[in-house]
C-alpha cells in the first residue's frame, strides 16, 4: 500500500501507521517524512519520538518512529549503515528510552535507504518480552519499502 510518494507499507494485523511531513528545514524544500507505527491507537497530539503514545503501550505493544533527516546527512558517519535494520532482542535497553517508563525498553538505529537518511526509534511495552516484540517490529519493517 502506498501511503505517500516514496513510502509503501504492507501493514501487518494489529498495526496502525501515520505519516506526516516535518516542517521543512529549508524554506521551499519539501518537509522530510515522519512515520509513526504502533499497535495502539496513534493520537493526534504526539511527539516525534513517541511522547503521548508510549505511555499507552501494554506489555505486548510496540511503537516505532521512522524519522527522516535532511539529504545532506547521508554523507555523515552516523548514517553509513545501509538498509532497514533487523531488530534483535539484545538491541533493546531500558536506558535507551528518552524518558524512562517502568518496564519499557527502547532501541535506536541510524541508516540510509534509497539515498535518504533515517533514524528508527523503537519502544517496546515490556523489556521482558523483547524477544516477541523484536519479531513483531521486524515483521512490520519487512513490509516497508522506501524509494
Amino acid at each position: 500500500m502506498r501511503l505517500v510518494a516514496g513510502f509503501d507499507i504492507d501493514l501487518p494485523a494489529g498495526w496502525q501507521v501515520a505519516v506526516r511531513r516535518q516542517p521543512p528545514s529549508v524554506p521551499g524544500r519539501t518537509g522530510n517524512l515522519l512515520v509513526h507505527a504502533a499497535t495502539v491507537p496513534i493520537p493526534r497530539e504526539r511527539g516525534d519520538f513517541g511522547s503521548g503514545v508510549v505511555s499507552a503501550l501494554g506489555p505486548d505493544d510496540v511503537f516505532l518512529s521512522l524519522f527522516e533527516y535532511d539529504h545532506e546527512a547521508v554523507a555523515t558517519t552516523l548514517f553509513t549503515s545501509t538498509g532497514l535494520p533487523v531488530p534483535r532482542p539484545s538491541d533493546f535497553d531500558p536506558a535507551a528510552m528518552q524518558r524512562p517508563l517502568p518496564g519499557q525498553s527502547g532501541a535506536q538505529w541510524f541508516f540510509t535507504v534509497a539515498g535518504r537518511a533515517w533514524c528508527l526509534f523503537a519502544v517496546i511495552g515490556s523489556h521482558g518480552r523483547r524477544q516477541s516484540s523484536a519479531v513483531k517490529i521486524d515483521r512490520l519493517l519487512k513490509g516497508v519499502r522506501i524509494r
Partner: protein
Amino acid sequence: MTAAVVALGAAVLLLSVLVAGLLRSHAEILKALHELGAGLELDKTGPVPVTIEGITAPRRQPVAGVPAVVSGSTLDGDVVALSLQGQDTLIAFLSSGCTTCQEFWKAFRGRPSLPPGARLLVVTRGLDEESESALREREPASVPLLLSDEAWDAFEVPGSPYFAYVDAAGQLVGEGSGGSWPQVLDLLTQARADAALRTKGSGPVRESRDEQALADAGIDAKHPSLYGETA
C-alpha cells in the same frame, strides 16, 4: 333489443378503453420505478438485497471486498493506515451535513460505550465532498476520524449514517444503519452474537457438520447404534 345490444357493446368498448388506459398507466409507473432502481432484480441470481433500518447480516457472502486495512487522511493532513485485524472495529460512516448523523457526532463527543474489546473509528468522505470547518467542529476528541473515499467505496456505503462491524479476524459481522447510538449498539450486539453462533455452528450449519462427522465414522441413518442396538 337492438338498443340493448348497442348499449352493451358501447359499455364493453368503454370498459376496454378504461382497462387499456389503466394497464398503460401501470406500465409507465413500473418503467419509471425501474429507471429509479427500485425494481426487483429477478434476473440476477442470489438473494435480492433488502434495505431495512437496523444492523443486518453482512450483504457480502463470503466476506469478499472487506479490506484488511483502511487508509485515509486526518484533518491535520496525516496519512493514516489502520489494520482491521487483531481487534474488533466498529466503523461509523458519517457526514458532517446529514441530519441523522448529528445524533452520532454528539454521542461520540464523550466516551461512547462500545461492545467489550471493540474500538470505534469514524470515517467520512474526503474533503472534495466534505466541509473541513464542519468536520473540525464535529471531530470527537477521543474517537479517531479518518477521511477516506476508498473506505466508503470498499464497504459500498449506501449513505450516511452507516455502520460496519469488523471482528478481530477481519470478518464483517454486521452492517447497516440506525437512528440513534443506543439503537445501533443494541443491534450490533445482536449481530455479534449471531456471528458467534454462525462460527460455532447452529441450526442447518451444525446439522450438516454433525451428519458429515457421523458419515466419516461410518454411521448412516440405518446404523443400529442409532436405534439402541449394538453394532
